[in-house]
């Protein structure tokens, strides 16, 4: 997959809160589909659907034996996606730190 297409797939996969929750659980260690389905009010096929999206994006691996084989997190594609988010975040954090300082000044002015 081309790098940009891969990144698009990663962002699309991350857009869903259930899939983010699944990733967060996998960050703590490998899990089977059944274990992953437990905390969600969701059937195993529904969870499997989410896992397929995550697999296509390259975010997780371990799908050959769908029932038993645990899934595990693949950090690389996620790292590429988070790098873009992080760059964006830093730019805005710079703006907002200036805004913090400005707000302090405005608050001081408002005090009698």
């Amino acid at each position, binding site marked *: 997959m081309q790098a*940009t297409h891969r*990144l*698009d797939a990663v*962002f*699309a996969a*991350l*857009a869903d809160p259930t899939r*983010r*929750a699944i*990733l*967060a*659980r996998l*960050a703590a260690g490998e899990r089977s589909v059944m274990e992953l389905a437990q905390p969600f009010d969701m059937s195993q096929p529904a969870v499997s659907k989410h896992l397929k999206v995550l697999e296509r994006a390259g975010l997780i691996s371990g799908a050959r034996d769908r029932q038993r084989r645990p899934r595990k*997190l693949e*950090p690389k594609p*996620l*790292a590429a996606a*988070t*790098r*873009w*988010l*992080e*760059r*964006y*975040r*830093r*730019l*805005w*954090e*710079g*703006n*907002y*730190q*200036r*805004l*913090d*300082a*400005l*707000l*302090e000044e*405005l*608050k001081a002015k*408002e005090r009698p």
Partner: protein
Amino acid sequence: MSNLKVTTPSDREIAMSRTFDAPRQLVWDAHTKPELVKRWLLGPPGWSMPVCRIDLRVGGAYRYEWRSDKDGSTMAMGGVYREIKAPERIVSTEKFDDPWYEGEAVDTLVLTEQGGKTTLTTTVRYASQATRDAVLKSGMTGGVEQSYDRLADVLASLGR
């Protein structure tokens, strides 16, 4: 209060949320009064905002122009206000003069106050997923490479 969160709530959006230690009215002023906006909405280090015009009414326009003090290069954007509900909500369009992405984006700014602190949420909705991703990749600035090794942090925040 450094706790800015950036998320991608849908395939066409980027959302940011952050809390400020100030009442909502002041955060509102800082977003709507040109002399205040000019002081903080600057982007990367070394840029200033010589032009900031705001016609704060539905259908009114705004225009921001930035300039690099280093090499004199400029960047500008503007748009039109679609919804204004002081001091809590603004919906506006945004378009850069030299857009590196297709179409017009729609910004929604929401301010909520609790216990003297204000939480700002801003969501930008782009014309397409490809556009949204292009903006994320640009980092809004281009070329601001940052080293990072924060996968664990990001994963931790995903779990919240």
